[in-house]
């Protein structure tokens, strides 16, 4: 399994009208969407445009065919919403079109962050640093499980095979590692 499976399951539920499932998706992608639209409309309007994007996504969700990843679809809505926002404000949308391929890569490239505020960059860097420190201090079995999952992208089944343990144990180890991570992330986000 992979995170897209999560999206698929949540999308199917949300398409049937389950707002709980949609909220899970909103919480999952809120930072990416805010960052995306802030590139086009600036930080001041980004939260409003991001919210509009997600509301539009909810309204159009039943038309989502699943031909692309959910985030790719959401990304397109975000771009269109941001451009419409600029037009409505009498501003010309940027000529710098964001290629749809960026949707999959978004967040991994340095140039995409060039409009981030110093505060958000600081927080992101701080989270990244703290998480790294926590992972380094984890017991070896937890560390190995979370690294194989987060950095190597292996499935639980593959990790179980690699660590020669049941899948349930993998699930438990990853969860405990995340508990330790959350212990340092929570104060930063609060």
């Amino acid at each position, binding site marked *: *399994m*992979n*995170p897209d*499976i*999560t999206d698929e*399951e*949540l999308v199917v*539920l949300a398409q049937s009208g*389950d*707002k*709980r*499932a*949609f*909220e*899970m998706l*909103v*919480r*999952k992608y*809120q*930072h*990416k969407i*805010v*960052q995306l639209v802030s590139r086009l409309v600036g930080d001041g309007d980004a939260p409003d445009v*991001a*919210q509009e994007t*997600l*509301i539009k996504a*909810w*309204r*159009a*969700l*039943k*038309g989502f065919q699943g031909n692309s990843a959910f985030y790719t679809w959401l990304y397109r809505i975000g771009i269109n919403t941001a451009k419409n926002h600029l037009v409505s404000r009498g501003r010309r949308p940027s000529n710098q079109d964001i290629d749809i391929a960026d949707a999959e890569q*978004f*967040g*991994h*490239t340095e140039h995409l*962050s060039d409009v*981030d*505020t110093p*505060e*958000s*960059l600081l*927080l*992101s860097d701080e*989270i*990244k640093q703290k*998480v790294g420190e926590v992972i380094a201090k984890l017991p070896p079995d937890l560390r190995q499980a979370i690294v194989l*999952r*987060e950095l190597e992208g292996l*499935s*639980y089944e593959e990790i179980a095979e690699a660590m020669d343990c049941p899948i349930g144990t993998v*699930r438990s180890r*990853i*969860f405990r590692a995340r508990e330790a*991570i*959350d212990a340092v*992330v929570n104060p*930063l*986000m609060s």
Partner: protein
Amino acid sequence: MSEELLSALLDGECTPAEVEEVLAAIDRSPALKARWSRMCASRDARAGVSIAKPAFDFAAGVMAALDEAPAEAVNPKVVPLRPRAVAPQPVPLPAAAVSARSLRWQRFAGLAVAASITGVVAISGRNLLDRPIASDSAATLAQVTADAGGNPDIVKVNANGEIVSTADQDAVLSAQLDDETASKLTGYIIEHINLPARAGMGGALGYTRIVAQPGSYASASGSN
């Protein structure tokens, strides 16, 4: 257990039943929602996404906006397609039946025009004769004998609007009028038919000419 499932959900490692369990748990627990948000934010931060310290619960704001506009929650453009109710289709009529039905309506149309003309004739005839017309007297009744030339669409009626014959019937009724009255009536009908043409009512003229061919009024003595 729910938190462990939440972690598994982030990795796409939940069964559908477990997903439902997580959703039920998260719906009851704001703390669990916040935990999910942090897990996602933590992953995003490591992936290079900038994480803004939330001044408010952004996701809760989105969901509140959705709740405030429930009527707009469903985009009419994306309403799921449902099988359209199939109305029973009429059995196509054979061409001959369609033609017959069309002719039947044409007869009624002709009847309406012929009735109006007959009415005009009757009233005019009453004035010309300057004497009352007994409705039960065939002798005083002006009969429009539209010379249909065998046209089955023409129906002839009397002043009372009663069908007296159809063109496909061979009988042509003669008006029991004197020569002068019959001549005036014929002139009147011709004038009446030509009037729309002078008024520029080309379409009406054509139709009038079709359904009301030049009237032929026979005098009592047998001449027009």
